[in-house]
């Protein structure tokens, strides 16, 4: 099976409290090892809101899901909030299969995430 390694395209700090990370490709085991380290470092910088833009992520496996869990945990313990934006197709199915849609905030787009116009509630408070 061909897999496109995920490339961390861009980290945008909109201000001192909000960051957006654009991801592209396949969030699978092969890519998780390196990507995980960078995302955890980012989470430890204490953003109030961290948006992961998954609109162009084609597939995710359990290793990718596990990485999201770790980022979520770090943010949660530091009073921050993780929002998954642009989930679709297989990525959405995996989040639902692992029941993470019950605890993680999800929005249709980065714009919606930044305006809090999406599913979920601010669980960081």
């Amino acid at each position, binding site marked *: 099976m061909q897999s496109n390694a995920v490339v961390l395209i861009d980290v945008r700090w909109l201000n001192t409290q909000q960051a957006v990370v654009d991801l592209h490709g396949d969030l699978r085991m092969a890519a998780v090892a390196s990507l995980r380290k960078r995302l955890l470092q980012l989470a430890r910088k204490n953003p109030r809101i961290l948006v992961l833009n998954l609109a162009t992520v084609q597939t995710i496996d359990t290793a990718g899901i596990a990485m999201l869990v770790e980022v979520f945990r770090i943010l949660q313990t530091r009073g921050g909030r993780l929002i998954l934006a642009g989930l679709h197709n297989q990525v959405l199915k995996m989040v*639902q299969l692992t029941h993470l849609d019950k605890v993680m905030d999800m929005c249709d787009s980065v714009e919606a995430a930044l305006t809090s116009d999406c599913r979920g509630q601010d669980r960081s408070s």
Partner: protein
Amino acid sequence: MKGQGLINVSGLNSFYGNHQVLYDVEFSIPRHQVTVIMGVSGCGKSTLLRHLIGLKPSYPGQLFLEHQDMAKLDAREWGCYRRRIGVLFQSSALFNSLTVAENVAVPLRVHSRLPQETIRIICQIKLHLVGLSSFGEYMPSQLSGGMRKRAGLARALAMDPEILFVDEPSSGLDPITAAGLDELLLALRDALGVTIIVVTHELESAIRIANQMLVLDKGRLLVVGTPQEVQNSNDERVMQFLRRISDQQLTDTETYLAGLVGRRTKP
């Protein structure tokens, strides 16, 4: 090579010594679908499965993974193939000295460089998928047979395999748990696009989950098709299998008596 499936079987003959157990078996396994292999005990299902997972070698020209002749794979290529597949054996084959969670972690520790915490989370997720999220610290000996089977499935799923082979998934399970397992297999097909090959006796389960069914009898492939096509088959042995007609009713009683007491039935 014929067929456009993920795995293509072409004229597969298989022997144990001089005893032939598969005769000219030919079919394709389509991607992202569930293929169910059925048949009576001793028909060759398990032998066919052994060929598919690489435990029994095939001859050149008989078994293809995409366009690759599996008889010509070298050791490295076989290693790559085995990392793409997950196998749930009929007996589960758990390591008795490891906890359930440690069993699930084994493929991840052997075949990946994921950090410990990531492995731990993956194991939690897999155990939850099979309904064993509270049993990670149990030893296999502390589980029921059905729970051991589910633990084996969690381990087979640890690497998110592209191809999942499942040998008699429902054996030892109550109907409710078996139905849950069927639903899980379908969810895996839909969410992960896993290509699933199931060997089973359970007709109801097969009809529920199969995109394609194969019926084997005495080493020969009787029919390949959708569940509907198989159920509509006019083949006598297929109908016997589907209608659960025992071979007792087809036994040659005259020959039996002749062999037993030296005479046939009274006139």
